[in-house]
């Protein structure tokens, strides 16, 4: 099936552009527990009331994830086609 092989190669080449990023996914997942721990500890050191700590921790966690996601997207965009 040479046609299919050609298509497969084309797809692989296309996704090969983002392969370095995809290969990093395994490491990237470690960001979640790390960001969670940092958010909780930082918020706990700022406030005393449990509900306040938790609400601030959730907010900080989302902020970290969104910011890191934005950086990831920017790097992916800048490395597109390299």
């Amino acid at each position, binding site marked *: 099936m040479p046609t299919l092989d050609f298509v497969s190669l084309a797809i692989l080449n296309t996704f090969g552009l983002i392969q370095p990023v995809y290969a990093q996914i395994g490491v990237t997942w470690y960001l979640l527990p*790390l960001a969670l*721990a940092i958010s909780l*500890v930082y918020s*706990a050191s700022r406030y005393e*009331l449990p509900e306040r700590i938790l609400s601030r921790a959730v907010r900080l966690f989302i902020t970290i994830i969104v910011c890191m996601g934005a950086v990831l997207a920017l790097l992916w965009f800048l490395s597109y086609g390299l």
Partner: protein
Amino acid sequence: MTTAAAESRPMPWKQGNLWVVGLLAFLVPGLGHLYQGRILKAAIYSVCILGTFFGGMQMGEWVTVYHLPQDGKSGSISLSYAGQLLVGACAMPAWFQTQRYLDPQNSDILAGTLTDPIRFPIRGELIATGPGSDGVGGTLVGELEVAPNRVGFASEITGKFTGTVNGKPAEIKLAGSDFLLARPIGGGFDREVRCSVARSSDQHQHLVQVIQGSTPRSWINAFEAPPDPRKLNDLNGRLGKYYELALVFTWIAGLLNVLAFWDALLGPAYGFGDELESAKQSGSNSPAVSGPPPEIAGSQPVVATPSTMTA
């Protein structure tokens, strides 16, 4: 660092002796808060900081926390270990393990330094290279018996392997000068083993067989002990960026414990968390209120304020 709002109101927990609190908070993340009766914070700090620290250690195969001075002097301290030491007691064994590691008697055992017969379990591979190596070799599990064998001025070993190769029972004779058993005290729970296999009369003269593997290292000899360069190369080669990430985890845990330490001594940095609501209820511009918040007012006696805690 504490706000005016927090400074103007008493601490709703048992402050206790600040030296004791500081010591406990430094030694074990969350223990200072537990001593003060701040259960939730103790749980948050201990789970998050120790989880990050030991998670990093596990990710790096328990060879991420060690104290190995670059200049060989045990008094100096590397920046990496300084960051890890902030976690407290969990990183302190590394300091003592370094003293044991640098002991002259703690060295690799080679054919020339082997003085008495030794016997130890091994798990590894039989590696064959050269002509006639096809079909020879494989995974081996068993026991190695090695004894020194002085041949003139040359130092060699002799012995045998007993166990299984590729799941089949096997006994292999050992001989030659190529022998290595890694030092007893060192990073990692495996001691590297390498041993040459004796030649048999029917094998090709250029066929070389070597047993390569590892034998378990005891917990007390491995935990937070410095790894030798071979182990570090092996870890960096196999784990790559995961090993670096594991180091980062342990450093971040140390830095997070600084926040916990600070909180145990001086209280929360921004206040208790209900200052805005209290200010709205009182209708004044000042967020300061008197007395602890209603949620925690009855939990602990009031004994100190931040302004009195700097002594």
